[in-house]
């Protein structure tokens, strides 16, 4: 059959963010493809070198519209490592709480998008409705739905009071019910299974070769989670299960993310239970002494990597950011070979794309 090349993107109804693919298609089969990024490249790494450390917290927050908190957490811990200050335990717990809330919000958002792509709008509506419960928590404790501005160098900006904790507890227990309901549907719904099972499975070996991180790696049987393997406090004191699945297809990713949402709900409860008292900030100087630091965190999509070098002034000399979508994108051409044209949306949804992060 004749081979044709179909360009998808940079602007395409299938994509929420600009990404360009050229797919080789023969009949109903996709044979392979190439990728182009950079349509939302904002030069944030370079821009950060012209801002002060304080201003950068807010710049970094805007790398990603979904996992904004984990970026600032990673950045702040890099600065704090060079400064040699340790933030109060209460601040560590609040940072972790926000990270977990963000993971729930991100996974529910993703579940909605996947359901939408396979045509299961009921689940889309339910997942996004439940996500509002998390956003309500975050808005009322931090003041912003997605740009929380929760972190500052030396701690967090807000403290939790009685009222906040009650709101979190009630919303989390509501979410427990909702997520169980959604999981029940996912596990039993034949339409969802028919669309996701066996679609573009990735072997553990390939995952390792492509340095894959996060839920995608875990859905292919690679047991890696930075919260357990390379934790920053308080994760070393918290107990949770790392969810893995051996199949590596879109179905496995759905299950892993859905189960992880439940695990995060438990983590939120544990954090609230163990929340120590005390201050939430320590004073941090504006100028950072010369030094270099590397920090890694487990974002909803996997490992976020920051490298920071300071030269003793109040602006960073180099800030390198690696977001988890970048390795996922490098495996995309591999996944887009030997699938059906109708499965393209499922494959794209399955990797939980965040192009703006990947481009920076």
């Amino acid at each position, binding site marked *: 059959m004749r081979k044709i090349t179909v360009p998808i993107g940079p602007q395409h109804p299938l994509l929420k963010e600009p990404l360009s693919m050229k797919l080789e298609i023969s009949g109903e089969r996709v044979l392979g493809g190439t990728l182009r990024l950079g349509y939302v490249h904002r030069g944030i790494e370079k821009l950060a070198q012209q801002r002060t450390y*304080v*201003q950068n*917290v*807010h710049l970094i927050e805007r790398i990603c519209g979904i996992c904004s908190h984990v970026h600032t957490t990673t950045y702040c811990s890099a600065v704090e490592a060079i400064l040699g200050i340790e933030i109060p335990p209460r601040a560590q717990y609040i940072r972790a709480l926000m990270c977990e809330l963000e993971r729930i919000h991100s996974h529910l958002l993703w579940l909605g998008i996947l359901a939408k792509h396979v045509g299961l709008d*009921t*689940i889309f509506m339910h997942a996004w409705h439940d996500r509002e419960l998390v956003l309500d928590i975050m808005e009322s404790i931090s003041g*912003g739905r997605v740009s929380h501005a929760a972190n500052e160098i030396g701690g967090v*900006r807000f403290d939790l009071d009685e009222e906040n904790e009650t709101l979190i507890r009630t919303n989390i227990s509501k979410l427990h019910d909702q997520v169980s309901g959604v999981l029940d*549907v996912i596990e*039993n719904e034949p339409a969802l299974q028919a669309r996701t099972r066996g679609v573009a499975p990735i072997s553990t070996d390939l995952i390792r070769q492509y340095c894959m991180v996060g839920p995608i790696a875990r859905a292919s049987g690679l047991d890696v989670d930075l919260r357990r393997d390379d934790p920053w406090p308080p994760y070393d004191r918290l107990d949770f299960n790392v969810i893995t699945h051996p199949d590596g297809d879109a179905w496995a990713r759905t299950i892993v993310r859905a189960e992880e949402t439940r695990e995060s709900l438990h983590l939120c409860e544990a954090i609230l239970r163990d929340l120590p008292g005390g201050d939430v900030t320590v004073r941090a100087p504006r100028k950072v002494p010369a030094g270099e630091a590397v920090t890694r965190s487990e974002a909803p999509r996997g490992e976020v990597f920051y490298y920071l070098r300071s030269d003793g002034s109040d602006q960073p000399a180099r800030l390198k950011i690696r977001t988890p979508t970048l390795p996922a994108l490098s495996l995309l051409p591999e996944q887009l070979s030997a699938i059906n044209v109708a499965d393209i949306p499922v494959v794209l949804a399955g990797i939980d794309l965040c192009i703006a992060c990947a481009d920076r």
Partner: protein
Amino acid sequence: MEKFKKRFSLLSAIIQAWFDKPETVGYPFLPLVLPEGFRGAIVIDPDKCTGCGLCVRDCPAGGLRLEKKSRDEFKLMHHPASCAYCGQCERSCLRGAISHSNALVAATTDARELVVVLKEKQG
């Protein structure tokens, strides 16, 4: 029965949806309830502000501007359209003069509203 449950796992959710109230808010026809700590429009307490410029120095988005001739003659301006509503100015001000109210900042068609004079002091 098991098979029925598998086939119609969504049924209860669909039936429930007939009886649920809409989740959306009828804004702008109905009032929008925002939480206390929501970072909305920038407000200032003119008695407290001394024109020190700390807020301007730390603003990441160029949302604030200070024209200062002397200690007693300055003008502090806010640009709502450039502002990122990040709350840094509130943190940086040592006198607690500048802060966020929880009022939503609406879009405007009037260019004059894009510059808000927070405090003007003449010598």
